[in-house]
């Protein structure tokens, strides 16, 4: 990361980088609605601490002085954290998410909190209680979601990198829509401590950056075991940056029919072109079909809402956040939740409550968990034929604002290619590759088994080079 090495060498200062980030935010935030809160004071303090470390001759960290945007579902001490919801408006967390501790320790400068679909439920950032975020590449279009703010911050050059979360594609799809590299790490690679939960067994925090190398660097910083998260993998962070240029020679890459079928032609064309580029770089391309992937959407839209219905029960007006008064506590809970949650969140809470309720559990939630087993088995079989899988990230390029917001099922279908990986817990990333008919970026998706991030970054780098990116 150029900024970090320049800050460490004294060629620039963290404070100067912070100031230019602030300027970029001010220039376009009114238009794009990316930052919900710009933490000017915190950013200045963080930047000065980095500059002091440099001045003292200390190692200022891998991300020394790098401005970073944080999705608004990451708890940061004293910084308003809303998860895009009215119900948490004004809430100041009394603790830091583990990832925030880690980026701070690495010298990064958090610039503030960026917009997202309410509680990460959405694929366009239109369900935020604080208004939609617009795509910096074409403000009439959505940036994708739910981490639309995290993607837009980087695409609009407000910060060189950002953190988002991915439950069913919420990092990869906005990365695709905004022309960025976005990574959904292996489940458990990054601590979820301090990530406001949507669906606990699917959520992962991951990086956005303009290229594979920077994304690998940020992932290295945030990955590794955390004793505060019982589902955290036991090993330390893997080495990723050092493998970015490993290439794909000798790798078998499976183009999975179910991961691009049904996508727009302009998207399918880029997937085919990406396969050719990987073949040119020495990979063996195999055509694969994994029919189980078609069941992913249904399983996901039962499992995620079920977990969410329970995770979001705590927003009851008793301890923090919004309260709407009523004469007894149950009525107060109901009034608070009714006023505090938006329509999409209510839909998913009700869907999940229904899927778990007596008489329906076996047919819906129970059945979805079995499909999840089949999904994991299907991936295992696919990895016998190929080391990595290739497909589209999303069925289309960025769509226009409002195009799908009145049709939940149509919106859900935009996650069809990303969901299987979350169900299996595997690693995946989206890398920009080519542009469609309208000149908007297309993202292709690379998927690998758990802990395959290094190979995924190497393959992404091959595609970047083939696509003429530095």
């Amino acid at each position, binding site marked *: 990361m150029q900024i970090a090495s320049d800050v460490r060498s004294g060629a620039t200062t963290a404070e100067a980088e912070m100031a230019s980030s602030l300027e970029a935010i001010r220039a376009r935030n009114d238009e794009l609605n990316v930052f919900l809160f710009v933490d000017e004071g915190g950013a200045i303090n963080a930047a000065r601490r980095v500059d002091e470390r440099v001045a003292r001759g200390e190692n200022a960290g891998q991300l020394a002085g790098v401005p970073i945007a944080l999705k608004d579902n990451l708890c940061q001490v004293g910084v308003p954290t809303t998860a895009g919801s009215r119900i948490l408006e004004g*809430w100041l967390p*009394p*603790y830091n998410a583990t990832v925030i501790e880690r980026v701070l320790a690495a010298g990064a400068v958090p610039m503030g909190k960026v917009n997202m679909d309410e509680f990460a439920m959405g694929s366009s950032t239109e369900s935020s209680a604080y208004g939609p975020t617009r795509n910096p590449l074409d403000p009439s279009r959505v940036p994708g979601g739910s981490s639309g703010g995290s993607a837009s911050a980087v695409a609009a050059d407000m910060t060189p990198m950002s953190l988002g979360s991915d439950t069913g594609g919420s990092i990869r799809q906005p990365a695709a829509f905004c022309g960025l590299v976005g990574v959904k790490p292996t*489940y*458990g690679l990054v601590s979820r401590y301090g990530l406001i939960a949507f669906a606990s*067994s699917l959520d992962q925090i991951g990086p956005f950056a303009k290229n594979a190398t920077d994304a690998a660097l940020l992932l290295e910083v945030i990955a590794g075991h955390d*004793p505060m998260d*019982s*589902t955290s*993998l036991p090993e330390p962070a893997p080495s990723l940056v050092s493998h970015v240029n490993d290439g794909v020679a000798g790798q078998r890459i499976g183009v999975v029919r179910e991961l691009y079928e049904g996508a727009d032609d302009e998207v399918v064309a880029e997937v085919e072109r990406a396969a050719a580029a990987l073949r040119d770089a020495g990979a063996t391309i195999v055509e694969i079909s994994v029919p189980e992937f078609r*069941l992913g959407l*249904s*399983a996901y*839209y*039962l499992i995620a809402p079920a977990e969410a*219905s329970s995770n979001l*029960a705590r927003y*009851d*007006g*008793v*301890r*923090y*956040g*919004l*309260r709407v*008064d009523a*004469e*007894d*506590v*149950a*009525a*107060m*809970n*109901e009034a608070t*939740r*009714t006023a505090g*949650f938006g329509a999409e969140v*209510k*839909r998913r*809470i*009700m*869907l999940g*409550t*229904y899927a778990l*309720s007596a008489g*329906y559990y076996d047919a*819906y939630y129970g*059945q*979805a*968990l*079995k*499909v999840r*087993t*089949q999904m*994991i088995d299907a991936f295992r079989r696919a990895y016998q034929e190929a080391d990595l899988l290739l497909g589209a990230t999303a069925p289309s390029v960025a769509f226009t604002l409002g195009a799908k917001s009145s049709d*939940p*099922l149509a919106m*859900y279908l935009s996650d069809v290619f990303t969901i299987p990986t979350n169900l*299996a817990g595997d690693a995946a990333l989206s890398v920009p590759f080519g542009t469609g008919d309208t000149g908007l970026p297309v993202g292709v998706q690379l998927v690998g088994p*758990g802990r395959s991030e290094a190979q995924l970054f190497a393959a992404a780098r091959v595609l970047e080079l083939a696509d003429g990116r530095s």
Partner: protein
Amino acid sequence: MAPLRREDVAKVAKLARLKLSEAELDQFTEQLGQVLEHANDIAALNLEGVVATAHPFGLINVVREDELRPSLSRDAVLAMAPDAEDGRFGVPRIMGEAP
């Protein structure tokens, strides 16, 4: 599965402590009905004998030692509360005992 009925949605909303207007009830019944209809592709599968997976990886026995860690300051915690009194969180009357 039988199609989702309006009264099912009303019952679920009550369980989830959400209040729906008549119009919302109609709209949610239709929208959730569509999603559940889509989910019938898996509800209809015969998955007899397939083990359920609740968790992607099989970690076991993740525990911590029984050692004290600092708690939060009460003032900081009660500062977040919509209503606090006498070192405690205030709530309107509770109508029934815990189940």
